[in-house]
């Protein structure tokens, strides 16, 4: 049982004429990272707002926040991609729907992918933000109100700055998840790293070289993220606190 290894394939020209295969894969990694970063901006913004609202005392705001989280947590990511890509444009007014569907490649794939990943991850960020806020002693909020801050000032100056530092480690793993999850965008046509390694294996039949190269690129990316986030964590650490956040165990 022999597999014909041919590592040199990585330096050969890819049929699209854009350069070598390794260059083709690196561009794919670029798309994975750009998609993940754009989605991360949405996830952080929406997730922080939703997570914070779920800790307020207004019952209806909390209920709406909970409903948002439950909807996007209980539908598989791939199905959400299909909803954004195939279903959502059909519910827009006809002219806008057509404009969305006829956007030039790769934006027609990229924009739904960013929206989908951003909203999907915002739910996880919201859970972390809520957990972070609730892990603070009640006295913090009370002390804020007692010295004359309004409810929103107490959040802005007392609660959130501490909560975000506490949840740095789980947010790091969410960021690594968003890079990994960007691979699902390949199913709607975005040629990111996984999609390109699959395409390379179809062009050349050197399947394992293509997947091995993609695997190594993902591992290197993870390494960079972990090291970068550790440096950031060390810089923003609250003196006197044991820096550790309680991430939920189950997850991807």
């Amino acid at each position, binding site marked *: 049982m022999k597999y014909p290894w041919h590592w040199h394939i990585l330096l050969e020209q890819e049929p699209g004429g854009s350069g070598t295969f390794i260059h083709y894969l690196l561009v794919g990694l670029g798309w994975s990272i750009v998609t993940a970063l754009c989605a991360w901006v949405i996830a952080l913004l929406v997730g922080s707002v939703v997570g914070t609202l779920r800790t307020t005392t207004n019952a209806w705001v909390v209920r709406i926040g909970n409903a948002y989280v439950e909807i996007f947590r209980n*539908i*598989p990511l*791939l199905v959400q991609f299909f909803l954004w890509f195939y*279903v959502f444009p059909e519910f827009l007014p006809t002219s806008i729907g057509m404009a969305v569907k006829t956007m030039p490649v790769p934006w027609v794939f990229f924009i739904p992918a960013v929206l989908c990943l951003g909203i999907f991850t915002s739910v996880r960020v919201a859970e972390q933000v809520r957990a972070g806020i609730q892990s603070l002693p009640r006295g913090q909020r009370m002390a804020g109100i007692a010295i004359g801050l309004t409810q929103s000032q107490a959040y802005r100056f007392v609660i959130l700055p501490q909560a975000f530092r506490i949840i740095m480690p789980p947010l790091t793993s969410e960021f690594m998840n968003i890079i990994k999850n960007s691979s699902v965008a390949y199913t709607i046509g975005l040629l990111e790293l996984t999609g390109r390694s699959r395409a390379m294996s179809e062009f050349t039949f050197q399947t394992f070289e293509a*997947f091995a190269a993609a695997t190594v690129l993902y*591992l290197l990316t993870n390494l960079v993220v972990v090291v970068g986030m550790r440096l950031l964590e060390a810089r923003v650490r609250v003196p006197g606190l044991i820096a550790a956040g309680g991430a939920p165990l189950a997850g*991807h």
Partner: protein
Amino acid sequence: MSGFDWGEIERSLPYLFKVGMVFTVELTLLAMAGGIVFGTLLAMMRLSSHRVVSGVAGAYVNLMRSIPLVLVIFWFFFLVPYIGGWITRSNQPVQVGVFLSALVTFTMFEAAYYCEIMRAGIQSIARGQVWSGYALGLNYWQTMGHIVLPQAFRNMVPVLLTQTIILFQDTSLVYVISATDFLGAAAKIANRDYRLVEMYSFAAVVYFVISFSLSYVVKRLQAKIAVLR
């Protein structure tokens, strides 16, 4: 959009559930069983005082957790036939069905996640429990099997089930190897009849209802266990 066609969903119900959902549920349950067994072994290896053993398990878990599931599915889809050929000493890759390939993938992949859960479970048991086991004259496997693992497992049931709900959702990714799971069945009908809106909306609703109800059950279970302890 030419009106939402409810009849389309109704007509495809037998195919969606008898073919698609059966595939999804079978894959989820078997991969859960295999994943928990292999994951528990990995957790015991990771906690071993033997550095090579814990190193190997740690490397495996970190590797699986660092690469996307879609890529892992591709890896095993092409790797399993070669492994089969190697086992049977054949010169050709062995043809394996999509189901077996998916089952191997999810068992191996989820084991890494179940491992981390079981490791936390084992570490939550008081050290004195292990010592009392040894003091009674039990060996390592007896101590693990009769004392530590039953407690660790029991403490971790809610988290293991939550992970299984994620596994249930993740099985939809077998779409990339054209398997006919629930989503795959919906996609095939959607493309055949050009009814993507109906089929994908319906698939989303079904996944939501199942996952949401299961999470609710897990939440109730968690409350119950918390009271008992």
